[in-house]
């Protein structure tokens, strides 16, 4: 037991990015459930819409968009909350939500870890575009049915509600999702199906927080980073064509590549320069 604990600690020590984002993800879950003595609860509501520090409203722009498409008028508080969230992700990069906030990420990462432990090779290949198809479907269905179509099954808020009210009704669905990622498709849910990820990718298309390879010739093209990346295709231009930065908006800024790279070739930077990418296509350095 102590041995296992030591191993976990040393693993986290050598993976600072993983440690940081797990800490944040867990803190966010706890902020909604823990009452701090003298202070109270830091966050109220859930990931659909919440009130932080008793004053700051945050609203998921995807949920609000569905609501609006379903025919609801937009209310001020919800709109302000959505603007704050959308603005943040538009500036820094949309799928930061996936790696640093979304609680489902912990579930699917665990499934992936288990998949590797058991060396499961079988893989049902699916198009990664499916998530965009599901995104469009969710929006169109909201218009047709007048309800928030994705919220009927959205596992993110489902998981959060189950945790907050210690209920277990949605557990069947969540375990199905886990087994799907574990046994059926590599990175099946977050890498192929989830329309929430697709939505955040879309708003954060020009996100400025980027994995960059600024040190010339540090990369030995070992492709270790690609092997740990949840969206491996985003690193290909960097490794194969010596692009300066990961500009594909699929990048979740999880930092797994930074944790992995033994050459220190990669770093996470706020990339405010213009000119090294045009519409997401990296400009290759010579």
């Amino acid at each position, binding site marked *: 037991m102590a041995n296992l604990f030591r191993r976990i600690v040393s693993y986290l020590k050598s993976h600072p990015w993983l440690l940081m984002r797990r800490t944040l993800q867990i803190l966010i879950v706890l902020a909604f459930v823990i009452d701090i003595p003298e202070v109270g609860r830091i966050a109220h509501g859930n990931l659909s819409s919440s009130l932080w520090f008793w004053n700051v409203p945050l*609203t998921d722009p995807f*949920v609000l968009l569905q609501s609006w498409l379903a025919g609801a008028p937009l*209310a001020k508080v919800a709109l302000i*909350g959505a603007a704050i969230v959308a603005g943040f992700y538009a500036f820094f990069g949309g799928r930061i939500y996936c790696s640093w906030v979304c609680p489902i990420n912990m579930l699917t990462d665990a499934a992936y870890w288990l998949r590797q432990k058991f060396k499961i090779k079988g893989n049902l290949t699916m198009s990664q575009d499916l998530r965009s198809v599901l995104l469009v479907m969710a929006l169109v269905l909201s218009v047709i049915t007048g309800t*928030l179509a994705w*919220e009927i099954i959205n596992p993110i808020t489902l998981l959060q509600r*189950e945790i907050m*009210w210690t209920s277990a009704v949605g557990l069947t669905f969540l375990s199905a999702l886990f087994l799907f990622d574990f046994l059926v498709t590599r990175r099946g849910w977050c890498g192929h199906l989830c329309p929430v990820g697709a939505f955040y990718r879309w708003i954060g298309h020009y996100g400025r927080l980027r994995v960059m390879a600024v040190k010339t010739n540090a990369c030995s093209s070992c492709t270790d980073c690609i092997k740990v990346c949840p969206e491996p295709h985003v690193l290909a231009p960097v490794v194969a064509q010596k692009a300066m930065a990961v500009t594909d908006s699929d990048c979740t800024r999880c930092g797994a590549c930074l944790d992995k790279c033994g050459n220190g070739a990669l770093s996470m930077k706020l990339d405010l320069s213009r000119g090294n990418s045009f519409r997401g296509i990296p400009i290759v350095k010579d």
Partner: protein
Amino acid sequence: MTKHIPEKVSVAVKSVIENPERRKAMKRIFRHAGVAVFGAVVAQAVIFSRPARAAKILRPPGALPEKEFDSTCIRCGLCVKDCPYDILKLATWADPAPLGTPFFVARQDPCRMCTDIPCVKACPTGALDPLLTDIRKADMGVAVLVDHENCLNYKGLTCSICVRVCPIRGEAISLKPIQNERGLLQIPTVDPDKCTGCGTCEKHCVLSEATIRVLPRELGLGVSGTNAMGRTVW
């Protein structure tokens, strides 16, 4: 035939046919569109076949009419959290209401009709209408004495608990005497215009199943006017 097709289109069509890359891309787009249409039709059928909200599911005060409420409420639970009596709950899959929407069940825990209406204040979307500032104008449903057979007052006793617990007794519900073969009965009578549907009467009905129940207004009340079928003899 071909001369009716504008040149631009025919050039585009030609370039797709002759260019295998483009052909692939077009194929992909069509396949995705196919998946989307198929998926949307199935999902649409599933969504429409969901059972309607059950009659015992009552919405918090100020809730918009059910259809608008379903599209406006974003399932955040801020109202749930701000209710000081913890009567509200967000629907799980086991509850007969759209997933994640807030509700209460009168028999379990009725609305206490807070004068400052914290649930409405907490709602970020207006699904609980901020124009509701007087809790007595709330319309969560309407109390109906559904079972005359078992109501103790109908049996000639003076239980009258439902009347005594009502936060707006005398207005929303009061005792009206009627004379019948059992004698002079004191009948709990609801004024639907005054009743807010808070559910306190249902909660406290002394029988093991309440004889007075709060129902959504469209279920609980008739509407005056004529029904064409009413006089038809087949």
